[in-house]
């Protein structure tokens, strides 16, 4: 057991090192969410949610936190595993005595590290630039949302990786499969509305809006997002089941 943990940590370290060595990964994962935070955030300064005293930025910043979690966990891990499989690296791992759990554990640990760094960066810049801070009573929701969100979207990333058939389509498939949902979930626009009722209900079923709501509860007092937490749990279970069912070590 300890050997597996040590091996997983070694794997995670080298994954982190390669991540930061690759300009495109580091750039897309960090610069993209932070740019959106600053640009769209600036457009929301001084506005309030209709009929409330809640600043737009107070719900916008946690929305971008959710976006960051999804990019770091889902997009990053999903495309990474798809590329590793396509390149035959997973197959090569199977020729060694490294336990599969230690290898995948290492990849997950590295993903968690990236997600935490991105979340911390987003929260810090959101506070410095827009004065958005978690409310004292919201820390529990915030922590629960981050932990569950990272686990849920990393699992979904593993699941989607099995659907991706080439290294070239890894980025496009992972982004295209959540960005439209993120937009209609109001992640980029706190005042987003006007969806037909049925579509609004459909959006509620996806984990993107659930994660955003849970994190927003950590910043602005809103009804406790019980459904959001349950929904993230359900998607985690579904993602894990699909990932286990479809996971392949070779393309």
């Amino acid at each position, binding site marked *: 057991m300890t050997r597996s943990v040590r*091996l997983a940590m*070694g*794997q995670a370290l*080298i994954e982190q*090192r*390669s*991540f930061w*060595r*690759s300009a495109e990964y580091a750039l897309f994962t960090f610069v993209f969410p932070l740019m959106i935070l600053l640009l769209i955030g600036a457009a929301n300064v001084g506005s309030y949610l209709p009929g409330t005293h809640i600043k737009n930025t107070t719900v916008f910043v946690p929305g971008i936190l959710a976006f960051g979690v999804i990019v770091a966990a889902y997009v990053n891990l999903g495309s990474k595993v798809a*590329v*590793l499989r*396509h*390149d*035959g*690296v997973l*197959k*090569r791992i*199977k*020729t*060694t*005595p*490294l336990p599969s759990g230690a290898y995948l554990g290492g990849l997950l640990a590295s993903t968690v590290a990236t997600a935490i760094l991105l979340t911390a960066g987003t929260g810090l810049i959101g506070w410095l630039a827009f004065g958005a801070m978690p409310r004292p009573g919201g820390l529990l929701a915030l922590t629960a949302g981050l932990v569950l969100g990272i686990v849920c979207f990393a699992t979904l990333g593993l699941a989607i990786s099995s659907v991706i058939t080439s290294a070239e389509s890894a980025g496009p498939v992972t982004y295209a499969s959540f960005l439209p949902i993120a937009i209609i979930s109001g992640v980029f626009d706190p005042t987003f509305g006007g969806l037909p009722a049925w579509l609004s209900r459909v959006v509620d079923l996806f984990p993107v809006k659930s994660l955003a709501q849970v994190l927003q509860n950590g910043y602005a007092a809103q009804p406790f997002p019980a459904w959001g937490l349950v929904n993230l749990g359900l998607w985690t279970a579904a993602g894990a089941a699909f990932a286990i069912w479809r996971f392949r070590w070779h393309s």
Partner: protein
Amino acid sequence: MTDDVAVQVCDLRMSYGATQVLCGVDFEVRYGEVFCLLGPNGAGKTTTLEILEGFRRPTGGTVRVLGLDPTTQAAGLRERAGMVLQECGFPRQARVAELIDLWRTYYPNPRPLGDLLEVVELTEARNTQVRKLSGGQRRRLDFALALAGDPDLVFLDEPTTGFDPEARRRCWAAIENLRRLGKTILLTTHYLDEAERLADRIAILRAGRIELAGTTQEVAVLAGLATRISFTTPAALRRGQIPRPLGIDLAVSGSESVCHSEHPGMTLRLLLDWALEHGLGDLDGLAVTAPSLEDTYLELTGAGAEPQVSQAIGGRT
């Protein structure tokens, strides 16, 4: 099974659906030797290797690798056997020495890094990013990773396919280095020269069967190929002034006379007696040519047989 056998394969059978890829393969590899599974594409070489490596469960027959059953004892096998698959990528951002070092952590008794770099001649490229390596260098890095755990046995699946002559030569040098370390090597190839150059023993696999096995010379003899005996046609023979030698099927053309014999010693004696009798002295231009591995291989895998094989098993090797 005796103690000096590293790999034992008995009546190995494998089918994919209705297609039989291996139809009862038998061979054994002894400790410390380089054993080559030679055969055309689609013969079943890679399938055999994948079974030995524990990646596929055979339909029938028994297999022992380092005394282990690869299907049920894969984990133990992976600690003691290095595997170079036909095509296998590297993590995109890794550097040579860093990757080898990572691989060393996977094994209980790794070889020293400097040693590994030296064996595969990558010492100078140790800090190069893997994606900047040439095809030949990547293959040698494959060797280094397979060797990281200091295995007793190394599997090499078509190690030089598609390489230019210089890259092949350096790959061969690396394999020679492995041999000098005392590693048992099981390699597959469809290149004759590779088998001839590297292997202590060869088994020719065709259409899922071992046609022949032995040393290069043994294989040629076992194939029943005849030795070629030729000499310059003496003028008297050309003009029909002397009878042809008895008991020899001699083909006389204008300048050269040729016969093939499975008993070259006896044939030569008959031939020289005949020459003495007719005052021909030592026959001018007398040449005795033993059948080569190439002759053997071409004879066994000759035109007509192979396309059918490739088609039957969908080009899978």
